[in-house]
């Protein structure tokens, strides 16, 4: 049984197929049809809703998410706000400004855009609009009609306007912590949601001990965190997943802590939750994370999920490999440490043993003379899967590369180091000739695929050129912008 608030009212779901997405539940079970399905894969944002999640202190964090790839069971203990909460005129400033600016044409993407703007408003309403934040908030909402200019203008206007709902407003929780009491009344321990007749099952343990126990008892179960990738098996491949164990509510796996010279990120920590502490240590992460998925995806997707998924184009693994980060794996036989690099055996094959799960990721803090470069290359700049992602940690001593670790995504069956290229650079001057030699060595390191994102030849050439970009970027004499994203 799960419990959550839906537009200000408590909902209890005793029994349901846990393969149901929040979107399907809304549209087919509740017949709340304001939230739309555009792709059922988390790529268009028409399904955007807002969830409010209480933290340990009871403060509620409101976020835009893709309801099409969020599983119903994950709503337990949360507040869900849909566009149906905003059907009384005059509406929220996001709505009135969208009308004034002619921000809707066909109107199908509009409820999702409204919800993204309302979430942004709830978190960042201020006297001066922030275009950067606005574009980030809209990065996961596709519109095919307007070309976006009126939507961006509407967002800019809305962000400077106050919104003061009555206490009875179905989305009043967005102002202050008005939903805190209601949410606090919900059971905080582990929960199970089951379909009728012993059908599929979803467990959401609340503690590490419970997780270990469930994982040992049901080694065939699938682990799920934000479900931003796993749910595609349900919505795109039409599979029924029989048993899911969610790590989302296991508090030991959530959050970032500093442990001496390492940053420790819990495996179930969403991107947006670790983005700031990680980027403060290693600033190269921030621009990459801004382009990893959309804000809706980053609100749900987790670091552990990105690694465990073992995709050759997962964007977090190459920089973690470059930084020589380690994984803490937990399971029936206790915890063990493993370099991220050693985790990947082959395409989607990992070192994870039955019953094991990723507990946390330990990332070394920068040492003097260490530079990190992360470059993501994709067809579209925002919310696109990388054709190539290069992550380079370079240690420089008096112009000489004393050490380096070069890791790439999109170049092999797994995220992988370029050992030949590293050898070409190690001990050499950090200059054009060495970079050229390293780029040539990449041809011995990798034999990439041609696929819908790029050809093998493009991947190889770009991988080498990214080293050249890193060289230019470390030259204090080059003051010009080096990437087109500098023109954002």
């Amino acid at each position: 049984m799960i419990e959550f608030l839906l537009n200000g009212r408590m909902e209890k779901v005793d029994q349901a197929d846990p393969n149901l997405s929040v979107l399907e539940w809304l549209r087919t079970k509740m017949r709340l049809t304001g939230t739309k399905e555009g792709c059922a894969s988390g790529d268009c944002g028409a399904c955007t809703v807002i969830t409010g999640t209480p933290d340990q202190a009871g403060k509620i964090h409101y976020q835009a998410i893709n309801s099409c790839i969020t599983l119903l069971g994950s709503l337990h203990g949360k507040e869900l706000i849909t566009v149906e909460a905003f059907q009384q005129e005059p509406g929220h400033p996001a709505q009135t400004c969208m009308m004034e600016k002619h921000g809707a044409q066909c109107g199908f993407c509009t409820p999702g855009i409204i919800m993204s703007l309302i979430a942004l408003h709830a978190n960042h309403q201020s006297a001066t609009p922030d275009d950067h934040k606005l574009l980030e908030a809209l990065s996961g909402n596709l519109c095919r009609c307007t070309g976006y200019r009126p939507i961006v203008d509407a967002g800019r206007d809305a962000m400077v306007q106050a919104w003061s709902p009555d206490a009875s407003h179905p989305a009043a929780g967005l102002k202050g912590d008005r939903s805190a009491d209601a949410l606090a009344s919900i059971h905080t321990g582990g929960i199970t949601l089951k379909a009728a007749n012993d059908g599929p099952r979803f467990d959401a343990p609340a503690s590490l001990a419970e997780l270990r126990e469930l994982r040992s008892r049901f080694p065939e179960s699938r682990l799920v965190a934000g479900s931003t990738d796993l749910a595609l098996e349900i919505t795109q491949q039409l599979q029924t997943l029989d048993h899911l164990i969610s790590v989302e509510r296991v508090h030991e796996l959530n959050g970032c802590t500093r442990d001496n010279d390492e940053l420790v990120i819990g495996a179930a920590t969403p991107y947006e939750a670790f983005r700031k502490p990680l980027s403060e240590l290693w600033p190269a992460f921030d621009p990459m994370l801004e382009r990893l998925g959309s804000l809706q995806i980053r609100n749900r997707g987790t670091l552990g999920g990105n690694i465990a998924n073992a995709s050759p184009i997962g964007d977090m693994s190459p920089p973690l490999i470059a930084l020589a980060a380690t994984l803490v794996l937990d399971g029936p036989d206790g915890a063990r440490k493993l370099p991220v690099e050693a985790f990947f055996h082959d395409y989607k094959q990992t070192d994870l043993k039955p019953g094991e799960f990723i507990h946390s990721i330990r990332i070394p803090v920068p040492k003097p003379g260490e530079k990190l470069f992360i470059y993501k290359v994709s067809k579209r700049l925002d919310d696109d899967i990388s054709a190539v992602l290069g992550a380079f940690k370079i240690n420089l001593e008096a112009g000489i590369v004393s050490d380096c670790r070069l890791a790439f995504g999109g170049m092999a069956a797994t995220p992988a180091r370029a050992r030949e290229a590293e050898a070409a650079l190690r001990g050499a001057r950090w200059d054009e000739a060495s970079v050229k030699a390293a780029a040539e060595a990449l041809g011995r390191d990798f034999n990439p695929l041609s696929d819908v994102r790029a050809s093998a030849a493009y991947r190889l050439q770009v991988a080498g050129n990214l080293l050249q970009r890193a060289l230019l970027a470390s030259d204090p004499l080059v003051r010009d912008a080096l990437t087109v994203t500098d023109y954002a």
Partner: protein
Amino acid sequence: MRRLPLNTPTPRHSAKGLAGQGARHDSAWKHVSGQARYIDDLPEPQGLLHAAVGHSEQAHARIVSIDLEAVRQYPGVVAVITAGDVPGHLDIGPVFPGDPVLADDLVEHIGQPIFAVAATSHDAARKAARLAKVEYEPLAAAVTVEQALDAQLFVRPAQTQCRGNPDTALAGAPNRLQGHQRVGGQEHMYLEGQACLVEPTEDRGVFVHTSSQHPSEVQKLVAEVLGLPIHEVQAEVRRMGGGFGGKETQAAALACVASLLARATNRPVKYRLSRGDDMIQTGKRHDFLNTYDIGFDNDGTIRGADIMVAARCGYSPDLSDAIVDRAMFHADNAYFLDQARVTGHRCKTHTVSNTAFRGFGGPQGMMIIEQAMDDIARHLGQDPLDIRKRNLYRPGRATTHYGQTIEQHVLPQLLERLEASSDYRQRRSDIEDFNRTSPVLKRGLALTPVKFGISFTAKHLNQAGALVHVYTDGSIHVNHGGTEMGQGLYIKVAQVVASAFQVDIDRVKVSATRTDKIPNTSPTAASSGSDLNGMAALNACEKILDGLIRFASDHWSVAPDDVVFGENRVRVGKLSVPWAEFVQTAYMNRIPLSSSGFYATPKIHYDPSTGTGRPFLYYSHAAACSEVVLDTLTGEYRAIRTDILFDAGRSLNPDIDLGQIEGGFVQGMGWLTTEELVYSDEGRLLTTGPATYKIPAASDCPPDLRVTLLENSPNHEATVFHSKAVGEPPLMLAISVWSALRDAVSSLTDYRFSPPLDAPATPERVLAAVNASKAWLTDRKESA
């Protein structure tokens, strides 16, 4: 009938929301509050079933056997049908035959429906449809245009338009260049996928709620597959969640399948496509292979041209004949080609049948001449803008290669104005300075025009009907044959009607388009929606007004000229009667307050056998100046500023038109940049969702976008209030972005080499153009 002075600008003091004023989309609040209903949001009738189809996994094959037992046994399945279960016509080709609603024994593309399932849930229908066992005997498949040309496979015969003697002109020209290009297709990616809901009627007919740009065609084809007279089928379209041409013919197949299942089960059936199935099963913009051979003077003036356009049509004709025609009609874009031949091929491939998409072949045709403009400029060492300006149609050089004479010359002046307002020359010089010193990033600039012919090239489609009712409280209800897909047609027609009666816009309601209110409608396509339906609505209003004026003149004994409508009132001699009271009085005196209206576009004709005529009533004009910055290490780029000057004639609604222009431009930019359809060698589409097929996102819109409507430019033709069509032309303004990318790459060779850049210009293709430019430089050094 008395002609009313309607084709005049909005009076200074007027009712609210008349034509010419900005007005919000009529569904604006419903859109922003999630209350606008699309097909899948409609209340579900009792006993509703959900449809899915099983489709071919082979590009070209004979079906040896189909085993549907597992499909039938799947829990929730109520009916399974195949081609043999179709009581009426099997073929639902919209113009020419070739599209079986369900494949019989031959499949001609991956994704072609073979059987259909009705089940108690959407999920069950989709899962069941995957369980069929189909045995195929594979046949040779052509997937690309080149393969089709090699095998001489065509869905329709080639056509040629020829003016003068291009061969002689080419042979005698001081300069001659040849070039070729591939122009990619485009997925519509309407946010609302294809959908319909069909309810059986008591007469064994059906009522079809459809997301279609062409309800009359849905009605006709559903009647045909069911073997019924058309009057047993009604189709209704309230709105679409985007269309862009993708719901002109493609919606009918779903309605036919759902109707067959409704007939088989006698239950209502909903059929909506998942995004993946939508991308696999429905047609897209045609990709083209184009070539040019052009002769020109030393100043760049074109003397002769021989242009070939060849489209990948897919397995059936669908609308390809007219689409390739339109590509041919626009292979000149805005330029006088003098002695010219344009040949168009309709290549048959074993891929999904490509279909209408905003621009309808026109954009693909324009691309080849715009490439030639850049190439001529590089060849002569001149600015491409000067070459473009030199070749614009102007008086004395005003006849197209298909014989239509351009009568309203807007572009020469429009380009001058945009060149000045975009500060083209100064920025050109700044960009050259920047490129000389910037090591990695290069900027590019291009200013390109658009001239787009307005009318359906199939003459019979240039007609429309409308129905206007005035009720006794003065409120007005309008129906017309056009459909609303977000483009603002309903509000524009409502504004036309409000203007006719000089009443506030909120007295006028336009409701769902229905085949039983307006029969035999044309598709809402070809940018014609407001031209055709606005005029038909105006005609209906004129008929009502004519009766009202005669009545008022008799009733109050004044001259007809003394009955004047304005500001929600009617002035009758010295009396001023509020509109509602006037209407009430007319009603009490038994005056008709309802009328149908009709419009047929005048002047147009075209003879395909000679390739000549006047296919278009007029042309819409515009130009765009775009600046890009690109990364020579990765090929990544962004558009950083675009200035657009657009001739909307006397705009019916400048706010709505602005939205069409910006939206069309960005959609076109996606087509030419990041939107790449990738097929496997076997003909399987590999980009089947927004994860792999990338339409522009919010940050792709140029951060500096300046759009202006050309002022004081009424249409010289008698269109509705002398407005001009605005739906499709802006898409082609995005050619400026593609040309600016080529310009930026060309800076690597100091603008001496015109790099090849097929569309879409993905970062990979841009990097290939960079590589080609560097190779050109190396060659020059070596040969020097």
